[in-house]
């Protein structure tokens, strides 16, 4: 069996099975040659094979001829002699020349077994054509012969065979009778029943006719109902608004995303009319996925609070009802050239003193913003404090290791002169005690400048604080290693004490209790309260801050606020606990200064974010009522320079005004 590839006319191939016993290759000619053949030109040739002068037959059988590739012969003929291959195989050129020159090329086939070309005779070509057309190979075969019935359709009167019928064919079977009688008996006895007709359609009835609410199983209480399918949005419409359609980029992104990452499980599409809407290809998928969800997906009951965010905001009294408090910036005191570290207002509220890093102390008139005096001191001023006693006109200034007591000679002249008298009236005691600081009286030009007393400390001083009465003064020399960190000076007696025997950590700031003989010392994380008379520790407050920066005491004396570098402000109610009553995280950056107002229920905090936040802090006389803290105003105005904003805040002693000094070398008054 072999397969012939013939090129029909000019275009296509056709496969034709031919029952030769060997494989032939009929080379195809061009259309021209076919035409020639059709004209019957080559019919003149005798119907003989091209090379059948000798009848060569290969006897190797149906084996692949590749086996003889390496041999000189190609098989054996009928006599058992070797059939040799032709000396020279035809190469491409020969083939081509043959194709061009030989008019019978198209009807020549190559016999692999004998390695010879055979020219097909006309009969053979005819046969091939007929087979190609699906006709019988034999020309003379008539496929439409008249049919002859095997059997006649006429009923014959005589039987075909003459055998007499069996007896059993007309006598009823006994076995059958027995079987039937058995069945009949079984039916009679009711053993066999007629088969019921099968119900194919399900029967429905009122299943819930007797609804029994008690029949609800405990299981149903544990049941977690599956959430319903999500309802479609506008984007699922067949004709959505144009803004719901994806842009080209979004569509590309959608196509590249994994199916799980996609926000939309489908592409929104717009169709001009209902007629144009195609079937949704993933419909069955989606339903199937829903089925999977229903029976495979683990469920869990989760409690979620339904919170209205507005309800979370605490209901506070309106700031409007808590007036007065400073709301607007009304004055800017300019003059300093470097950061203003510290400010302090005079007890009358007429003057303001400020100390700056430009080595000057300036005195301002509060109402006009005029700089009344400028004093050069020999160092960056760390802290200034106006004596709170209205009968004394003294200002404590600290820079480097010196605390300077100044008489600014401002205000009531009587007060000024009485202050000078107070200082000069000092009589040194008989026995001169060794003191930690040296007290020196200023004279000459320094006296004229306003210097009165100079206290030279052994170490750099960071803060000075007056006692409420105005006689005692405390200075802080932060140093972790020694017990000489806090000193208390008495101005009238020019005496200095070191109240602490032991260092309890780096002291940040100190303060006197406004009414009672208590002394507050803030170290890095704790505030300790000492009783100065009993000389003992009364309380230790845990501030929960990392590093305290400032501290202020409520004029009532029972409350205290601490500002810290970690942006927090802690309010302590000393009667309540040693832990903060409230932590306020209002500022975004480190707090630098805090202050209480003397009369009004106000406190303020200044921070590095350049804002001063004024809060209403009402303390009630009723011990049962906790203080009310309401932020009332965020005051902004200071520029942030070198990451520093507001450095100190202080309130006006009588008015609801707040001063703030900042790193931008200005002092601002908010009224």
């Amino acid at each position, binding site marked *: 069996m072999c397969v012939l590839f013939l090129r029909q006319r000019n275009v296509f191939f056709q496969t034709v099975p031919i029952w030769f016993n060997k494989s032939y290759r009929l080379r195809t000619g061009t259309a021209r040659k076919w035409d020639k053949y059709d004209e019957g030109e080559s019919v003149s040739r005798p119907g003989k094979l091209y090379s059948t002068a000798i009848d060569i037959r290969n006897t190797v059988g149906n084996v692949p001829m590749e086996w003889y590739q390496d041999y000189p012969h190609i098989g054996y003929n009928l006599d058992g002699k070797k059939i040799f291959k032709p000396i020279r195989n035809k190469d491409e050129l020969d083939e081509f020349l043959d194709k061009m020159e030989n008019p019978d090329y198209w009807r020549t086939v190559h016999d692999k077994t004998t390695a010879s070309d055979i020219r097909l005779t006309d009969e053979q070509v005819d046969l091939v054509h007929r087979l190609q057309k699906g006709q019988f190979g034999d020309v003379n075969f008539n496929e439409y012969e008249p049919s002859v019935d095997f059997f006649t359709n006429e009923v014959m009167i005589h039987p075909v065979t003459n055998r007499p019928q069996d007896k059993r064919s007309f006598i009823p079977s006994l076995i059958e009778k027995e079987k039937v009688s058995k069945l009949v008996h079984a039916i009679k006895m009711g053993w066999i029943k007629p088969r019921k007709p099968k119900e*194919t*359609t*399900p029967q*429905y*009835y*009122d299943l*819930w006719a007797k609804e029994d*609410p008690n029949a609800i*199983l405990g299981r149903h209480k544990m049941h977690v*109902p599956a*959430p319903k*399918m999500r*309802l*479609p*949005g*506008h984007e*699922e419409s067949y*004709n*959505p*608004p*144009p*803004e*719901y359609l994806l842009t080209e980029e979004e569509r590309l992104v959608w196509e590249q995303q994994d199916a799980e990452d996609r*926000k939309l499980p*489908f592409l929104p599409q717009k169709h001009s009319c*209902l*007629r144009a*809407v195609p*079937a*949704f290809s993933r*419909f*069955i*998928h989606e*339903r199937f*996925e*829903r*089925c*999977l969800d229903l*029976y*495979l*997906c*683990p*469920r869990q009951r*989760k*409690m*979620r*609070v*339904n*919170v209205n*965010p507005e309800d*979370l*905001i*605490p209901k*506070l009294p*309106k700031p*409007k009802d808590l007036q007065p408090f400073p709301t607007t910036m009304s004055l800017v005191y300019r003059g300093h050239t470097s950061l203003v570290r510290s400010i302090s207002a005079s007890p009358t509220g007429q003057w303001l003193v400020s100390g700056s890093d430009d080595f000057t102390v300036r005195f301002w008139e509060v109402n006009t913003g005029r700089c009344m005096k400028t004093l050069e001191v020999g160092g960056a001023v760390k802290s200034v404090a106006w004596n709170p006693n209205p009968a004394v006109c003294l200002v404590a200034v600290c820079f480097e290791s010196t605390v300077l007591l100044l008489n600014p000679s401002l205000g009531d002249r009587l007060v000024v002169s009485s202050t000078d008298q107070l200082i000069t009236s000092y009589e040194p005691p008989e026995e001169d005690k060794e003191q930690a600081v040296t007290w020196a009286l200023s004279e000459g030009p320094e006296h004229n400048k306003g210097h009165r007393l100079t206290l030279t400390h052994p170490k750099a001083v960071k803060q000075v604080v007056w006692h409420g009465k105005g006689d005692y003064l405390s200075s802080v020399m932060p140093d972790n290693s020694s017990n000489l960190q806090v000193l208390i000076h008495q101005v009238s007696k020019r005496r200095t004490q070191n109240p602490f025997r032991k260092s309890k950590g780096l002291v940040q700031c100190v303060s006197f209790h406004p009414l009672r003989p208590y002394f507050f010392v803030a170290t890095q994380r704790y505030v300790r309260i000492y009783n100065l008379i009993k000389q003992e520790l009364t309380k230790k407050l845990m501030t929960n801050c990392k590093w305290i920066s400032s501290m202020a005491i409520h004029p009532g004396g029972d409350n205290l606020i601490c500002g810290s570098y970690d942006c927090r402000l802690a309010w302590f109610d000393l009667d309540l606990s040693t832990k903060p009553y409230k932590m*306020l995280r209002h500022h975004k950056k480190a707090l630098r200064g805090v202050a209480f107002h003397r009369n009004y229920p106000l406190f303020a905090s200044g921070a590095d974010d350049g804002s001063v*936040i004024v809060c209403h802090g009402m303390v009630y006389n009723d011990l049962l009522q906790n203080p009310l803290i309401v932020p009332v*105003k*965020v005051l902004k105005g200071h520029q942030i320079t070198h990451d520093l904003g507001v450095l100190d805040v202080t309130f006006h002693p009588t008015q609801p005004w707040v001063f703030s000094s900042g790193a931008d070398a200005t002092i601002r008054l908010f009224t």
Partner: protein
Amino acid sequence: MGGLQKKKYERGSATNYITRNKARKKLQLSLADFRRLCILKGIYPHEPKHKKKVNKGSTAPRTFYLLKDIRFLLHEPIVRKFREYKVFVRKLRKAYGKAEWTGVERLRDNKPGYKLDHIIKERYPTFIDALRDIDDALSMCFLFSTFARTGKCHVQTITLCRRLTVEWMNYVVASRSLQKVFISIKGIYYQADVLGQLITWLVPYQFAHDHPTDVDYRVMATFTEMYTTLFGFINFRLYQTLNLVYPPKLDSKAESELKAEHEEDYAMDSESYLEKLSALSASLARVVATAEEEENQLDQFPADGNMEAREKEQKEQEDQNRLFEGLKFFLNREVPRESLAFILRCFGAEVSWDKSLCIGGTYDVTDETITHQIVDRPDIDKQYINRYYIQPQWVFDSVNAKMCLPVEDYFLGVTLPPHLSPFVEEKDGDYVPPEKLKLMALQRGEKHGKIQEEEEEEDEDEDDDDDEEEDNDEEDEDLTEEKNLKKMEDQRSQGKVRLEQEEKAEEKRLAIMMMKKKEKYLYDKIMFGKKRTTREGRTAHNNSWNGVNGMVSNVVSMWLMPFH
């Protein structure tokens, strides 16, 4: 002295859960049978709170069932039926192997089957429970009823699904409970209010399905088996509530009307009956023949604000139900007949279609009393002057708007306005498409045409002003001064308003400062979610698919672990 040492994982949550494999072994079922049982009985895996504890210290991913659930399955009579079926299959195979054909026949006749009635009753102890859970059943049955009978599932299932869905549609028509409809790219969504339950279902478009290969039809078939049982019982009960005959029968009057001349040519009587029902053009027979449905008035209770609201609501509902009453529609052959006929009949319209399209058409195109003809082609040759030729979207939009929308936007060949989803309920702050705003204005009774007119008038006035300017400048100056004054006043009032707003905003800001840390965190999270949704709404012009911003409902049942 302590007693015996407590062993781990012998008490507590570890003993409350059971893995799937263990459950299967306990029930002695194959995985396929177990799956079937779980589907039928509605047993689903639970996600334990402490997975590691339940998993005895291992963190391997496992699905857990509640042990109580599995114990509950142990007593299920249907498990025995499963085993019987297994035995039946074995016997049948043996009989085939031995070529015992009578045996095969006998076995086939006695093929064990099971009923799911008791399971339905047990899963849904009350009717309302069942009704609440019918969404999926409806969608599934509608899908199965559109399948070709090509062996993806049993033909009986398909016919049963078709029958049930037709019954359902007839019920909805009879009870007039359809609320919302929506043409989506997936299919057509319907929402009905049945006995106070909102039921939504999705019907695919009438096309041949391209059956996917990665879908397990056995799972779907099991679900459908359960759903058809449930659905049948629900239908029965629903028909009972309306005093309708179940299985549904056409009204005798309607039946005689529908008796067409060439009905014998159409189909066998038994087959054409379902089709006549599915045509939805005739009313159904009632158990007790009542002349007309009497309007059930709400009983008057002593005056109450609540009562008034309810009355108003009911009135609105009735108005919506009578939306298309008195209108006569004709459906062209290119529109989806079933869905449109269903919707129109739900709202009291008369519908008909071409006789060659489907059985049950009651009048012809030539009928002069037709008010609307629904056409979905660019143009139509022969037009009658006394009817509107509209596109099908009009029907859907009108139903959703609860009013007959102006037909001008829906005429033949007109570019249709966007079709909006009626299921989206915008909260304040969400993006609202302008079309919806327009629609809402229309519903409030404003006519957008009027507004436009006013605007035009204003324009004209301005033009007049310009003309006058040339004539007399002085007067104009006075006018302008007055105008300026007015403007200034306006600005001042605006400034006041703005000041107040600012004050309020600052108050809020200050109050936020005083929040506790925990609450602040929660608040920030909520606000962040809200902002994100609005931002996405602004950028990706949509916000409907991430409307969940964390705090939604009190108790939420959750899907966990997407597994596919």
